[in-house]
């Protein structure tokens, strides 16, 4: 039981930190679907040890995060947005539930996990010359996929504000609305020649594979962040 102001304030700060990290993940979801990626990048810590592991590739440092979201994705305000099927006729929605958020005892970092039930809608075209024909957009073929995954996230306090620090998206299933997820097709990572190589091949459902034990490992309480124990790349350095 706290006996002084500082201890009580620290306890309250850690409780507030849980909400702040939850809010960050909610913001990620809303901004991602709205294709407001410029604003999303602002929620990241301005550090060289940022890590972003997506199913198609790895990005390191804040420059890597910017590359992923500002170059490989884009923003709804970009000149090219009208021709981007992720925005134009697109709807990529990723919800966050079943949270575990552990704030370090020192109140400087947090580690979290979410399940992500989501769906992705996009328009596909038969490309004759490799270009999308804006005038023929209404002839595009809509695709609707259920797309579920898991997130492991490390957060850090930067100048008194909580920020994303390290994030990994683990795919679970991605298949057409009309297809059972036991018919999961391999993730088409080869279609996205973006980012660096991942430290480990992503798990995907197959009838002869075992669901992984610790991808990710749910966070447990901890005192102070140690990159050699809590870093998002640690499972791959030890395997």
């Amino acid at each position: 039981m706290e006996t002084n102001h500082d201890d009580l304030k620290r306890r309250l700060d850690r409780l507030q930190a849980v909400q702040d990290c939850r809010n960050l993940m909610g913001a990620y979801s809303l901004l991602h679907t709205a294709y407001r990626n410029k604003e999303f990048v602002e929620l990241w810590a301005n550090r060289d040890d940022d890590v972003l592991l997506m199913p198609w590739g790895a990005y390191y440092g804040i420059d890597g995060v910017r590359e992923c979201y500002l170059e490989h994705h884009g923003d709804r305000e970009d000149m090219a947005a009208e021709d981007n099927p992720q925005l134009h006729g697109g709807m990529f929605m990723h919800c966050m539930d079943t949270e575990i958020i552990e704030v370090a005892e020192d109140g400087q970092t947090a580690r979290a996990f979410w399940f992500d039930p989501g769906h992705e809608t996009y328009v596909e075209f038969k490309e004759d010359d490799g270009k999308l024909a804006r005038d023929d957009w209404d002839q595009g073929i809509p695709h609707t996929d259920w797309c579920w995954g898991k997130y492991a996230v490390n957060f850090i306090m930067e100048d008194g504000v909580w920020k994303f620090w390290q994030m990994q998206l683990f795919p679970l299933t991605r298949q057409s609305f009309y297809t059972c997820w036991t018919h999961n097709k391999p993730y088409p990572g080869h279609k996205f020649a973006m980012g660096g190589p991942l430290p480990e091949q992503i798990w995907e459902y197959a009838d002869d594979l075992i669901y992984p034990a610790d991808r990710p490992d749910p966070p447990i309480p901890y005192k102070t962040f140690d990159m050699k124990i809590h870093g998002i790349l640690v499972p791959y350095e030890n395997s």
Partner: protein
Amino acid sequence: MFDLDKLSLYADRLSGARECRHLVSRYAYYFSSMRTLELAGLWARRDDSVFITLWGEYDGYEGIRRHFTEEMGDRSTPGMDEFMKGKVFIREFNTEMLQVAGDGKTARGSWISMGHNAFIRPDGIPQADWVWNKYAIEFINTDEGWKIWKMHIFPVFSTPFEQAWTVDSAYQGFRFPNLRPDKPLAEPLWHWTVDGAYPSDEPDLPRPYHTYEDIRFV
């Protein structure tokens, strides 16, 4: 120097967040179970309370109470047992963003809701629909505790379970009969189109704030 008032307010704000989150969960549970008398009781008894839903706007606590308890009906109302047969409306809430004002008097949040409806069509065939929505909600701390103050429901999709939402993306599905909102919607409902853009601010992000101002969040 030990500032008990500041720490108490801090603790109250954290507790308030939990209360607001519980209001959203209670909304979900009472809506599903058609306990609409209790559902109306989640709202602040104020003339400026608002409920904007997919077919119109209900103004003031009386308008909101009328919608839930009369237009929808409560399961305790005679005859409701027949009406409720074969109907299930599930709304689950996730992806929370929630900001409690610095002064601890109001709060503002957004959620995504994954859900589904089941009902019996006029031809007697049961129908099941996937129903996803988004919610912008403002809360106020009253003498009766935290209450929902203003709520706006934004559609994502409502589609038969066997049909992707792009086949007929206009928001479909069950409607309670005899709906008479106080006002029509200010704008048509968004729905997915092959050549349209997903809206940028349905809802907008709830930002930290100290004292309430009506920024048209709801």
